[in-house]
């Protein structure tokens, strides 16, 4: 297990997650979505740099979730 902090706008949450928890897992996580209120169309950033979904989140990392622009229907 490891601890990560996730921020979405002015709200943030610190939680323990599995050691192999990736940025994609975070973006898809219903638990984090419910706690912070983000949707399906997001990107994950660390220190302002967008992260790959497959990358494992380092322990004690602070991840900022941002809403991504969608394309016109």
């Amino acid at each position, binding site marked *: 297990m490891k601890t990560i902090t996730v921020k979405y706008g*002015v709200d943030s949450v610190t939680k323990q997650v599995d050691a192999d928890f990736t940025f994609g897992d975070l973006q898809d996580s219903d638990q984090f979505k419910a706690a912070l*209120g983000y949707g399906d169309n997001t990107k994950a950033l660390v220190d302002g740099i967008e992260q790959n979904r497959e990358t494992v989140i380092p322990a004690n990392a602070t991840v900022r979730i*941002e*809403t991504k622009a969608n394309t*016109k229907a």
Partner: protein
Amino acid sequence: MEKTEIILNHDGSFVERLVSERPLNVGQNVLDTLTENVCRQVRNVFHIPEWGAVHASVGVHDVLWCIALDKIPLHARFKLINQVMVPMFASGTDIEMPLVWRVPANVKVVFCVLTKAEDGFVSVEGNWLFACDSEKRGYRLPLPNLHDDCRICTGQFEGDQETALACVQKSLDQFAVSKWNSDLMRTIEQSQKFFRFLPTKDTFEPLPIQGEWTSLCSKVSTALYERVVV
């Protein structure tokens, strides 16, 4: 410039230290790099009649202009359901009307224009429409023609102008006359709880939002929203 320092150590011995200093001509570059993402907020830069005060978030490469709206022009199709006039954005048959929705006191709606100074003119890089709560959480209103990041699908308009003021004015003009259609539409139920009008003898009076307004919107967080001045 060279300095000589004589240091007395704890053990009583003396050491001579020579320090060499020379000015490096990188001050501005370093400052520019360090402040690349820093924006300066300036309030009440100008005032646009019928819209109000315009605030700015001035970045190194662009300026985000922000106007707190007290109304949203809703050129859309509407239908009378249970004596309440509600939008029918995807309809092709219901009556089309230019109703004006008044923003309630507990909702802050901000219209934003991002401009960039080009060679001899200023260009509009985009328009956004955000709703904010009292703690400055950002929300996407239940309206069509809005991307997930609250960027407005404005349609074509002349976005290259001589001044930033003209860019903001043109953007607002476009916002005022644009029709809300079914592009980027989500569920109509949320829109119909949010934008409601009571038909009276002479006009259509905006009705309060049905329920907690934030539950009818999606929460938004973007780098651009962080710059919004409310």
